[in-house]
């Protein structure tokens, strides 16, 4: 037990203990920066919108003088947009286009027949979507004309509403009316845009009919009405049928047949009213999928089946012109009935620009698509009013098209410039100059030759047409370069960066293991040679549990049920401890108590997980499980309000008892008294907040805003006092006592804020964590008499318990698991940094902040007061390194998992949020470990304390 032998090592002082931790933080940060840069595709949302008047800045012809139209001459007045979710291309295109005929093909003959019988006014497109192919991201992409990524950094704090410019917004802005029916994702994205909407819930995948029947009910009557310019009907049946039964199934075929009937009727109604002067004289019908699906009904990734969807467009005017063959991408085949059907190809990215051009509204500001010539041609004939020239229809169409493309290119260039100017991670300089070069070239051609040719009406088509074609090619070149660049920037993972990140992460793990081994070696002298079997068993169990936990992250199912898995492992560790305590014949009560506690945790986690399934109570202040339980009886209601307060009073009383202990002198004593004051304030806050007791006591505003602020201020003050209090400390006490006092003080200083933010469940979870921590502390001593025996098992237990607390306090690893309400306790208005800090404290308070700062208790309770400071500090630093290693290993597995599953269906829904949470978890743990080590390892001179 002699520490004097180690005294010589103390020369390097405090930094000798903690340099390894700082190195680890640095390595982890670098690794994660690299990996994130390659994996998390990020894009900044620009808040700008296009305006009608903007077009005068462009070099193109502006049709402003032209009877109120905006950027381009409108080609259609009204648009019927029928979205069939997860529409595969082989549902629409004839089966002869595919190597084999399958049962689900040729089930929508109405579209095929229209395209074959009227090739000039109806067309089938193979529309290529950009991943992520999930409905929300796709709708966003379709309406904004951009490439939504996983992280669209913007002003929306949690709510999915689109803040970027989009054609729905432009329609509304230009006085058009939009009607929506079907999938309620639209109303989430566009909460205030619709004139009328008939949303139906989309989350119940097993329900094939509610949304579709709702659509059918409203669709046909709406077609007869005149009060809309854009009608959106979003059918979900095919998507749901795919998810549940797969593509090759009877429900899927029934759904397709049902759609066929509906589409027949829609076309019939539109056709009947398409005569001159009728309401649908100038209407365009678009039937499209938002993405495809695999044969199992999955979508989200970037495989061909998922990104290839269909788009069918039909205009009801008398057809006039055909597209010049240079711009015709269609391939034609005979179908089973021997009719010729053509299928063209387009990018979904181009949809927003094309629709805007057809409707004559400004293009969305962030659209990077180009106007698709074939789709644009469907609205061709309405420009022929001034056909006094000697040009053919096709030439006039081309004139219009070239002008529209001119506007299009100018708008895309404007967006690229604005994006690079405002985004932190814009395009590289080389790319920008390349884009600028191509654009200047195209624009020079426009201003110096094409524009003059167009103005001079006497030109022959022989001169004009080649010039126009060259111009169109120049614009195409520019627009293609931009969209390719944007795709590589926003939809493709950078595997080199990801690999580098993983490599650095592995190096950091090796470094940590090395640090622990070195610390062990240093103490080989002190370890009593009688290695007990429990040390070995404990280490094996630690590695085993850690291995299982880490490997469980490789499967999406286990990530989804992570709370239960963590609790399963916690209980297992509890059973192992119980077994050990039976062997030793002591601490029986504690180990049984620990099992009971983990059982309670388990129920709390289950309540939390059931909430995850239905995320309706989203922005609610206290979405805690207490309220969930208490929603029934009024007695329960009452108990739910009173019990947390009673528990908090218990905590305060316990803290008071602790302070009365003799070894607490001034800085710590006052800190703890401050915490007790905070607890009282929290109770007052709760009382004034509740409907039952509140009101008469004090004005709501004081309780709601000032009390929380006072508590934050006190906590901050306490932490500052603790940080600087060390300087004035009298060194009369022994190292171990000081360590206990410091730990208690810092925990109590944090606890009031954490409890306040967690809401009413906070006090109960805090109580549970104290009890659990106490038990684990006791278990460290299960093997008596052995200084420096292996504590890795206890640390693992500590870490598992922390994970369980994360789930117990009503969180889970997804962005809707964040309790945004907590960020606004005490504050009304939104300030990004402040609210983010509060949210982080709420989310990780119980699972990181308190466990990391509480870790020294495991060391302090183990030893007698006389083992010497250096020894304790070495143990403590080893312990922190072990704890950091456990977190780092689980995070490494999460990183490996997202790398393996980067093309998985759930990568954006499940793996990426888990990745973000884990990475945040790791960095926060590392940083807190560093702060804690600065705080705990004081620089006082090593006093060799000999026994």
């Amino acid at each position, binding site marked *: 037990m002699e520490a004097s032998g180690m005294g010589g090592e103390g020369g390097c002082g405090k930094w000798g203990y903690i340099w390894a931790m700082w190195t680890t933080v640095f390595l982890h940060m670098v690794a994660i920066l690299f990996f994130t840069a390659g994996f998390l595709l990020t894009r900044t949302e620009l808040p700008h919108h296009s305006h009608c008047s903007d077009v005068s800045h462009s070099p193109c012809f502006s049709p402003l003088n032209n009877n109120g139209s905006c950027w381009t001459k409108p080609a259609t007045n009204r648009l019927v947009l029928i979205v069939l979710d997860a529409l595969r291309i082989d549902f629409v295109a004839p089966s002869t286009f595919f190597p084999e005929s399958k049962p689900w093909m040729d089930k929508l003959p109405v579209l095929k027949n229209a395209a074959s019988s009227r090739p000039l006014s109806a067309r089938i497109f193979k529309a290529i979507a950009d991943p992520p192919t999930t409905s929300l991201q796709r709708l966003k992409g379709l309406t904004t004309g951009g490439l939504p990524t996983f992280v669209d950094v913007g002003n929306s704090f949690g709510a999915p509403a689109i803040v970027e410019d989009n054609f729905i917004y432009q329609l509304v802005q230009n006085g058009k009316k939009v009607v929506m029916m079907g999938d309620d994702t639209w109303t989430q994205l566009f909460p205030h845009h619709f004139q009328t909407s008939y949303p139906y819930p989309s989350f119940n995948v097993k329900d094939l009919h509610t949304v579709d029947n709702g659509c059918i009910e409203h669709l046909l009557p709406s077609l007869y009405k005149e009060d809309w310019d854009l009608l959106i009907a979003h059918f979900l049946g095919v998507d749901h049928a795919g998810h549940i039964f797969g593509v090759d199934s009877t429900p899927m075929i029934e759904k397709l047949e049902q759609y066929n009937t509906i589409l027949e009727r829609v076309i019939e109604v539109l056709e009947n009213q398409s005569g001159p002067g009728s309401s649908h004289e100038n209407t365009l019908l678009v039937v499209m999928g938002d993405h495809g699906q695999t044969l199992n009904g999955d979508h989200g990734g970037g495989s061909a089946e998922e990104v290839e969807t269909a788009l069918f467009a039909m205009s009801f005017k008398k057809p006039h012109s055909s597209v010049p063959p240079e711009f015709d991408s269609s391939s034609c085949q005979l179908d089973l009935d021997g009719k010729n059907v053509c299928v063209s190809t387009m990018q979904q990215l181009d949809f927003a620009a094309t629709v805007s051009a057809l409707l004559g509204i400004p293009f969305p500001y962030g659209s990077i698509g180009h106007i698709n010539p074939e789709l644009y041609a469907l609205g061709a004939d309405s420009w022929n009013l001034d056909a006094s020239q000697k040009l053919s229809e096709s030439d006039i169409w081309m004139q219009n098209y070239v002008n529209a493309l001119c506007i299009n290119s100018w708008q895309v260039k404007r967006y690229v410039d604005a994006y690079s100017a405002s985004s932190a991670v814009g395009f590289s300089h080389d790319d920008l100059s390349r884009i600028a070069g191509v654009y200047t070239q195209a624009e020079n051609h426009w201003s110096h030759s094409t524009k003059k040719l167009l103005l001079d009406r006497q030109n022959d088509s022989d001169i004009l047409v080649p010039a126009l074609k060259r111009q169109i090619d120049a614009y195409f070149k520019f627009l293609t370069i931009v969209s390719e660049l944007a795709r590589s920037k926003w939809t493709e993972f950078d595997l080199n960066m990801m690999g580098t990140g993983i490599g650095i992460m592995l190096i950091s793990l090796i470094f940590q293991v090395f640090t622990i081994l070195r610390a062990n070696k240093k103490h080989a002298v002190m370890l009593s040679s009688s290695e007990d079997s429990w040390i070995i068993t404990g280490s094996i169990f630690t590695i085993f549990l850690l291995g299982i936990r880490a490997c469980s992250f490789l499967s999406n199912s286990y990530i989804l049920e992570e709370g239960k898995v963590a609790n399963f492992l916690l209980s297992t560790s509890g059973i192992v401890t119980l*077994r050990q305590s039976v*062997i030793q014949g002591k601490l029986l009560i504690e180990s049984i108590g620990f099992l009971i506690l983990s059982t309670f945790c388990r129920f709390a986690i289950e309540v939390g997980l059931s909430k995850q399934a239905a995320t309706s109570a989203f922005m609610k202040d206290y979405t805690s499980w207490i309220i969930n339980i208490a929603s029934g009886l009024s007695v329960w209601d009452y108990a739910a309000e009173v019990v947390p307060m009673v528990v908090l009073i218990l905590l305060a009383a316990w803290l008071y008892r602790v302070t009365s202990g003799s070894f607490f002198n001034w800085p710590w004593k006052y800190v703890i008294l401050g915490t007790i004051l905070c607890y009282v304030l929290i109770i007052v806050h709760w009382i004034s907040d509740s409907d039952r007791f509140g009101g008469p006591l004090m004005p709501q505003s004081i309780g709601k805003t000032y009390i929380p602020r006072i508590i934050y201020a006190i906590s901050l003050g306490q932490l500052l006092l603790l940080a600087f209090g060390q300087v004035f400390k009298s060194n009369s006490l022994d190292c171990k006592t000081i360590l206990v006092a410091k730990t208690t003080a810092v925990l109590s200083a944090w606890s009031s804020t954490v409890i306040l933010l967690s809401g009413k469940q906070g006090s109960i979870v805090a109580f549970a964590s104290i009890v659990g921590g106490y038990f684990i502390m006791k278990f460290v001593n299960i093997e008596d008499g052995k200084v420096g025996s292996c504590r890795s098992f206890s640390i693992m237990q500590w870490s598992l318990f922390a994970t369980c607390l994360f789930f117990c306090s009503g969180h889970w690893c997804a962005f809707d698991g964040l309790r945004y309400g907590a960020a606004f306790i005490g504050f009304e208005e939104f300030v990004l940094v402040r609210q983010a800090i509060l949210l982080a404290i709420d989310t990780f308070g119980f699972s990181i902040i308190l466990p990391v700062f509480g870790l020294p208790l495991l060391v302090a309770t183990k030893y007698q007061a006389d083992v010497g400071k250096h020894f304790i500090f070495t143990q403590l630093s080893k312990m922190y390194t072990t704890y950091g290693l456990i977190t780092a290993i689980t995070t490494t597995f999460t990183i490996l998992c997202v790398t393996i599953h980067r093309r998985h269906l759930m990568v954006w829904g499940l793996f990426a949020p888990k990745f973000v949470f884990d990475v945040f978890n790791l960095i926060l743990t590392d940083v807190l470990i560093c702060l804690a080590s600065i705080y705990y390892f004081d620089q006082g001179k090593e006093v060799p304390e000999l026994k």
Partner: protein
Amino acid sequence: MDRGKSHRETTASIASTAEPSPISAAEAFLVNALCVLALAFAFWVSNVIYSINLVTHPSLTLFFISITELPIVILLYSRYRQNGIRCTYLQAVGRGVLGVPVGALLNFLGAVALGAPVTIQYLPKTVNWALMMSVFTTVPASCVLGSSWADWRRIFAQTKPNGSIEYLICLPAHGAVIGAWFGAWPMPLDWERPWQEWPISVSYGTIAGYLVAMVASLGFVLARGRSQHIKRE
């Protein structure tokens, strides 16, 4: 899944020092074979005669397995009771019967701590599973060891069986528990197979672990017999 069968008021009897009734390798084989046969018989009868199985009727099948296995286990293991002189065969049988509810309760609590569902719908399944577990774990031990806390502790906490019969108690019990623990692993996976429901996969795990450990215990008994043989020579 409670390995420490705690909380039994015990008078830490010195009886544990007494050598347990000897059991030859052939007898051990017979005991194991009969237990396995009873298990197979239970499966066969439930499948063929009642046409139920674990997937379609988990509680009924589990119950049927328990009541088929229980008498055989009690009757067989009571023959090898400790302190054969002071304790009659009937007493040993009585101890075995008493061991059923106690073991079931411990297993039930263990399962709940590890996350077994507790809603009304699942309660019969959990209870029947716990009964089966108790037949595999505590019943043989309570027949042979009675209420000797020291022996229980030695076998279940320290895993230091002493003598052939204790191998026959210790290993299958541990096998059943560990098998059940691993049997819980497929449950969260999204394969949507009917056998992933509680407690079907866990029961399969239990039975698999039990069978494997039976074979292992037989191996231990054989090895032990040989080494003793050598020693005696």
